[in-house]
């Protein structure tokens, strides 16, 4: 069976997740991480709100960072949120009642950030390992590419110069397209060109440029 095993079967699940994610708009790693974070928070609210260890961690990290607190508020179950934050606020109330402001500071990192970072590393390692893979290369070429931060992390990780140059040239082409769309958008706002229709790509170019520079949150 080992002899008959195809190369495709040897590829890990993150590889296929990435391949699928390249079909979406924006950075594929950001998209996967957003999904991972949402899954983590949903699971935490559903399964672990009463777990003593989780409670202790959340008390010390004062819940979640601003980004993940915002995700929690958008998608989370309000009852789970209420249980978690009741515990945190009770602790803050207890410390303030003792006139102790020292313990109002963060003592641990947001647990979602820690979890997210592990997945981020995995996805970037898989991308680096498969940069010469034809299927992935094609998917990358056809996609909107990575955001600046993930591109930088990946480029720093890749040792092979040809793979690095290929990666950079794919993204330079993507930048060319976005810049042209931005210029066209500006030109068509001029009095003489107002009659020209702004294409959907030109209309979306501002958001695309922002997404490229800072990625999607989560």
């Amino acid at each position: 069976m080992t002899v008959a095993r195809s190369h495709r079967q040897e590829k890990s699940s993150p590889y296929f997740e990435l391949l699928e994610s390249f079909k979406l708009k924006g950075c594929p790693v950001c998209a996967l991480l957003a999904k991972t974070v949402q899954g983590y928070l949903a699971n935490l609210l559903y399964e672990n709100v009463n777990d003593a260890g989780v409670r202790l961690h959340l008390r010390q990290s004062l819940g979640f960072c601003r980004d993940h607190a915002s995700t929690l508020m958008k998608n989370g179950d309000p009852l789970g949120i209420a249980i978690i934050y009741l515990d945190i606020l009770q602790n803050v109330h207890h410390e303030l009642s003792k006139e102790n402001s020292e313990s109002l500071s963060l003592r641990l990192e947001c647990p979602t950030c820690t979890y997210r970072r592990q997945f981020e590393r995995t996805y970037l390692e898989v991308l680096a390992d498969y940069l010469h893979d034809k299927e992935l290369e094609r998917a990358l070429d056809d996609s909107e590419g990575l955001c600046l931060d993930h591109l930088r992390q990946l480029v720093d990780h890749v040792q092979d110069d040809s793979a690095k140059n290929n990666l950079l040239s794919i993204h330079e082409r993507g930048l060319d397209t976005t810049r042209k769309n931005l210029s066209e958008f500006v030109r068509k706002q001029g009095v003489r060109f107002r009659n020209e229709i702004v294409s959907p790509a030109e209309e979306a170019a501002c958001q695309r440029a922002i997404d490229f520079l800072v990625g999607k949150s989560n």
Partner: protein
Amino acid sequence: MPAGNRLSGWEEQLIHGLIALIPRLSEEPKGERKERQKFVGYDDLLKVLREPECPACFIVRRSLQGFLSVALLEELAVPEFRERLRMSFGYCRQHSEYVRVASRNWLRKMGVAIVYEDLLGRVQDYMKKYHAVPVVSDCPLCGLQEEVESYAVQIIADYCNDSEFQDHYEASSGVCLPHLRDILKLLNGEARRFVMKSHVGKLEIRLGHLQEFIRKHDYRFTHEKMTEQEAASPRNAVRFVVGS
């Protein structure tokens, strides 16, 4: 600024103060900044206290939104700001959200398009020159936010000794936890005790709402009507902990 969200006098003053501050921000090392002019007067601060959110967060948010709406229209007229933005390869993720919102207005969207076309060009040049990818760092709005934030915290702390202000503060929803930490660092004695005691009371109200929210989710009490404050209590608790 969207209609109904017009800038008030202090906001306009603060924004122009921020614009004037930009060249100095790039020259002065951190921690060596000189005393700033005071923009928010006592009456303005009392108005801000009536808002249902942390007054320091409110001042910061309104100032940065206002600043950005001016900067996106007149960015070319503030070359120092534009240069700082080019050096940092754009805004950080948090402040890019302000740009996203501002760009919903078509006039500002044009400003965003001009600025970002230029920024992407800089990224391309960097990639070609160094065969590497630049980092977005030292966001110019972070520097301004730091200034406005320390200013807002300072004026609230300054007035905490005043008994009339204390009455207004007591009636407000108070500051968020990050700003509470900052204010407590600036206070001692009676004023510090007042702020702590006031927040103990405010927390008791928040805890009461959260407890009722949880209790009314129990199948035995689901028929009991949830008040508006109870329904909003999970969201308000998160906002208190991270700021709004």
